């Protein structure tokens, strides 16, 4: 409870600011609409109003300000509008037994989740394998690391369409493969960097100790380097899963895809349905939250069982 309070306070502040911002954001389209339906607006004419600041418009049309909060296609929807849209496309549809219909956000979230999962799995495996290579091979340390860093300087939005085109050339565009690749591409780097630090974290004395036992390199890996890297692994997995989700959504944007949260955002943009975009954004945020929370839980359980939870505190 004591932990929840600050979170709730911040949440309330955000909702408050959001709610207050709705009026200035929507006042122009609200006045345009009101004028069209015959209400008296000062000044008259959309063009004239362009010259006036939103604050002045609100001050001069106080009676019409509430209309900002009731727009069908608002610039900025109210928290309530988003919540309603969210409920209509998730819970309400699920109650109707249409949770997996094309119109349901749950369906799209499920699609995105699957690609995220495969991307995360692929990216994590590559990241861990790369880290082991870098830590154990001087050559890889010198050759792989710079490329890994360079790879992250290429903006993913530039790369995503290329990956999709190449994937369709290779005939593997089905089943979200390109999305998973993009997702893995974003995910592998934090895992790689975290695991390199983790595998290198044992102190010289700990490595010397193993040498006095004439331990083999593989014993050194399993008994020292790997367990020592576990706290680092979880820290980077949490970053990695969020990156994988972002990668998947970005991968869903340019495909002309019709499935997934990214597609939902794009379609909402094209058809001018901002509420759909906002609801999809919230779904993505919730998904990220759930995934990170799940990993956090796994981290706690693992570290406690390893006896590291209290030691790290």
């Amino acid at each position, binding site marked *: 409870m004591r932990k929840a309070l600050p979170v709730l306070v911040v949440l309330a502040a955000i909702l408050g600011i959001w709610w207050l911002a709705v009026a200035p954001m929507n006042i122009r389209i609200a006045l345009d609409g009101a004028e069209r339906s015959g209400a008296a607006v000062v000044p008259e004419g959309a063009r004239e109003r362009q010259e006036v600041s939103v604050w002045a418009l609100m001050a001069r049309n106080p009676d019409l300000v509430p209309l900002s909060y009731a727009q069908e296609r608002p610039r900025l929807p109210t928290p309530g509008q988003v919540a309603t849209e969210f409920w209509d496309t998730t819970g309400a549809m699920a109650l109707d037994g249409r949770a997996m219909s094309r119109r349901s956000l749950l369906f799209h979230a499920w699609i995105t989740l699957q690609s995220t999962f495969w991307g995360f799995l692929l990216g994590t495996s590559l990241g861990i394998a790369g880290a082991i290579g870098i830590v154990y091979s001087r050559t890889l340390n010198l050759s792989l690391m710079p490329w890994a860093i360079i790879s992250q300087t290429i903006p993913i939005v530039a790369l995503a369409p290329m990956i999709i085109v190449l994937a369709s050339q290779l005939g593997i565009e089905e089943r979200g493969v390109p999305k998973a690749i993009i997702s893995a591409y974003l995910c592998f780097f934090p895992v790689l960097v975290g695991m390199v630090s983790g595998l290198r974290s044992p102190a010289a*004395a700990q490595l*010397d*100790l193993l*040498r*006095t*036992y*004439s*331990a083999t390199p593989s014993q050194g890996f399993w*008994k*020292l380097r790997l367990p020592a890297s576990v706290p680092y692994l979880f820290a980077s997995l949490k970053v990695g899963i969020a990156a994988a989700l972002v990668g998947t959504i970005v991968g869903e944007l340019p495909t002309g895809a019709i499935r997934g949260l990214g597609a939902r955002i794009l379609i909402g943009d094209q058809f001018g349905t901002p509420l759909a975009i906002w609801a999809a954004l919230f779904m993505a945020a919730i998904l990220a939250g759930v995934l990170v929370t799940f990993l956090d839980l796994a981290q706690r359980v693992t570290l406690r069982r390893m006896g590291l939870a209290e030691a790290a505190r």
Partner: protein
Amino acid sequence: MTGDMPTPAGSMGAPVIAAEGLNLTFQTADGPVHALSDVSLAIAGGEFVSFIGPSGCGKTTFLRCIAALEQPTGGTLSVNGMTPDAARRARAYGYVFQAAGLYPWRTIGRNVALPLEIMGFPKDEQDSRVARVLEMVELTGFEKKFPWQLSGGMQQRASIARALAFDADILLMDEPFGALDEIVRDRLNEELLSLWARTGKTVCFVTHSIPEAVYLSTKIVVMSPRPGRITDVIDSPLPKERPLDIRDTPEFLALAHRVREGLRAGHAYE
């Protein structure tokens, strides 16, 4: 079962550790560092040898050479009549570092079992050995505890148990009690001495404390830095039985005085 006592290799006669004109120069950015210069020393089986000297005189380096963690640049060094490398593979020694260096994710029992796992001891023998050495260092009942649940002194005892677990004849200890307070230290010194008397192991023990060196040792090696070298080797006339209050006897004080003089002479040399 596992009651085989270690046979002190080369008991009487051939030394267990023999260094002849040992040199080790580190090449550093600031030029060469002569960590060991012309070090000659013979240690017989069952001896308790303390190395004492100011910081940087090469005590750790000498121990690391014996453990084949460092490669001398000149001279010869043999352990049990073998090269240090071969001796290591023959499990000739256990090394106790200044920091206990227990793995935090392993319980005390599993930490002590670490060398046994690596050396491929069968599981039931691992268990019996762990139980036996934990009893030696009076940690019975702490097998299931994690290192952070133990005091510093207990952790250091666990690390000694870990070095004892595979029954090496030689125990190399680098300031094992350096970070502990005086009272814990006294107690561990007493325990170490009785452990040494029971097992007949050869111990090489690095310390900064003159009373500790005099109390524990059959032989005290005084070293001095730049270049790291041996300035005096003192054979202790004290009896093997040593209650803590032996430290107030004239013999003890005379010996401590001689060590102190040796350390001072090393400094005056500069």
